[in-house]
């Protein structure tokens, strides 16, 4: 079945990827969501929209990001060639900015003056605060009170950029609660406010739109790997929190059916412990944050708290497209544990002089596992979704180093 699908025709008009996706939001939100979907559709038909995006990608974000052959990592594994897509070199230090640039340009077209967003580790929050500064918009970032406590430098970066950071105190006081609060705010401030969702999850059109803004990752990889290797890669690997960096890498290759794609979830303390962030590995279909998708839930359909050493993966849901790709077996989803990710952090740092985000370490870790068992003519492209400077405190704490 997988072979006959044209992936470019998904989602359908209502945002469905097979049974997943859709708009599962309250009526209070529906008109807003439909307006965004409508505005986005119009924008994609206007060539100047993509031109504007491209302008900021090149001159502001610093795109294209390099596709870097990780020689020492490859040698260490002794198998397939490992390439790293260097999204860590983007302005603000992660892939997140691709999406923020796209959405702020949309919000501008819609005449919005106030931007709200959720953030977990603060990476999306910083990216949003950044584009709000650049486009002179009011900016309110919702962030779990617990996350605020453990990500202070990012909180201060957001404040410096002129954003207001509002603590979400309900529930687990982490990312999912920040999303809840942001949606509540949106409903209450219909007229002037745009909700800039930070990953390829949530209600339609976010999974599609966020994905589209990130496909620049995969498009660049396609061109770069041809330049460097004169052929396409054999395997693509990316970490999945909400799934935006992964789908951005995968999407331009989905129709190349011979290319394998692997999404790497956070196994936290181990899938068997339940303390993880791996809905695709240890979750089931459900409805969360506006979308039908795999989620972490108990027998009664209550959402479980997610656990991961990397705040950016710490989410009990996942973008709908990934749920679909899993079910139709177009992509494979595995999980990597906290301690494996930390080990990989050291390895990448020591071998390549690159401090990877802990999120990205999950992807590299799995790539290293499979590279070993592949022949040296094979190519793996791993998305290095962000830089690890933000994680130095976490790693130090783990290693028992006092900063």
């Amino acid at each position: 079945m997988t072979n006959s699908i044209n992936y470019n025709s998904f989602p359908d008009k209502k945002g469905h990827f097979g049974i997943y996706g859709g708009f599962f939001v309250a009526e209070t939100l529906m008109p807003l969501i439909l307006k965004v979907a409508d505005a986005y559709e119009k924008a994609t038909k206007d060539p100047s929209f993509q031109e504007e995006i491209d302008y900021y990608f090149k001159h502001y974000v610093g795109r294209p990001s390099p596709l870097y052959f990780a020689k020492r990592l490859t040698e260490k594994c002794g198998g397939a060639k490992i390439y790293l897509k260097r999204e860590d070199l983007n302005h603000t230090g992660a892939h997140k900015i691709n999406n923020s640039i796209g959405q702020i340009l949309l919000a501008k077209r819609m005449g919005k003056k106030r931007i709200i967003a959720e953030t977990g580790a603060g990476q999306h929050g910083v990216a949003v605060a950044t584009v709000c500064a650049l486009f002179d918009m009011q900016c309110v970032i919702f962030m779990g009170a617990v996350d605020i406590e453990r990500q202070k430098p990012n909180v201060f970066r957001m404040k410096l950029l002129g954003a207001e950071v509002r603590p979400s105190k309900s529930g687990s006081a982490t990312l999912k609660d920040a999303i809840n609060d942001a949606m509540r705010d949106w409903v209450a401030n219909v007229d002037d406010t745009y909700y800039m969702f930070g990953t390829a999850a949530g209600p339609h059109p976010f999974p599609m739109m966020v994905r589209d803004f990130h496909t620049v990752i995969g498009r660049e990889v396609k061109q770069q790997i041809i330049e460097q290797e004169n052929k396409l890669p054999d395997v693509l690997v990316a970490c999945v929190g909400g799934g935006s960096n992964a789908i951005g890498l995968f999407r331009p290759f989905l129709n190349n059916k011979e290319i394998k794609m692997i999404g790497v979830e956070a196994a936290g303390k181990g899938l068997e412990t339940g303390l993880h962030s791996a809905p695709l590995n240890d979750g089931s279909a459900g409805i969360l944050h506006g979308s039908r998708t795999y989620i972490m839930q108990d027998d009664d359909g209550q959402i479980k708290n997610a656990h991961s050493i990397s705040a950016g993966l710490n989410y009990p849901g996942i973008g709908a497209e990934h749920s679909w790709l899993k079910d139709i077996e177009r992509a494979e989803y595995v999980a990597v544990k906290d301690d494996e990710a930390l080990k990989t952090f050291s390895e990448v740092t020591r071998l390549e002089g690159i401090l990877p985000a802990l999120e990205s370490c999950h992807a590299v870790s799995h790539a290293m596992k499979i590279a070993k068992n592949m022949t040296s003519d094979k190519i793996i492209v791993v998305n290095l979704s962000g830089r690890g400077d933000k994680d130095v405190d976490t790693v130090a704490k783990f290693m028992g180093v006092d900063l």
Partner: protein
Amino acid sequence: MTERIKNRFEALKKEGRSGLITFTTAGDPDFETSLEILKSLPKAGADLIELGIPFSDPIADGKAIQEASQRALKAGMNVKRVLDMVSIFRENDKETPIILMGYYNPVYKYGVDAFAKDAAKAGVDGLIIVDVPPEEADELLIPLKKNNLDMIFLATQTTDDERLPKVLKNAGGFIYYVSIAGITGAASASEDAIKTAVKRLRKYTKLPIAVDFDIKTPKQVKAVANLADAIVVGSAIVKIIEDSKELSKQEIVGKVLEFVKTLAIDKK
């Protein structure tokens, strides 16, 4: 369409007054107290009863109802016990309509078919699933219909004339008009705004119209009762439970009923 909702609105019409719909979260602050409140609500003046199915992530709700959900979950509430509670209530009250209100995931997890069957059996009359808009409702409408349950839809300020017919197309029971911009417990709309809104809805539907506008005082009930077919009071009741942490079950039940009594709606 079940008969209880229809009958109740017809009776209210005959009495010449609007109905009072109370909202409480099932299992808040615990199963027994919540059941006790439920049982006494009709006598205190509730014409229809909305019972919340607690959910961990109630996106459309404000602080008061979020916390009610948390209390209920903490006390061990789940979907099956919500239905149990309705069953027990139905042992003594065959007339008062009960509408369950909740989010889709617990229902989805339970299984929509099983849920519709069990809910009907327990004596539920209608269902409001906050995060299922008409666009996604098909999968619910069929099993509900099969079990004679009404699917009640929300209409809001922002549901414009173009969108209204879509919302109303499969609506059953009554129309639940959310007059406030934002989440439950947020700022109230003006009387005038409500009047205009109800008038607009009237153009499109013959179903009774219930207005939720976050009433906090009996005075407010008096002021707006006549603007619609029914008035919903939610956060204000839930807040009483929240504020009664130190009290005994009996005292909590008493306080809630005392408050509901002050809301009871007289003839126009």
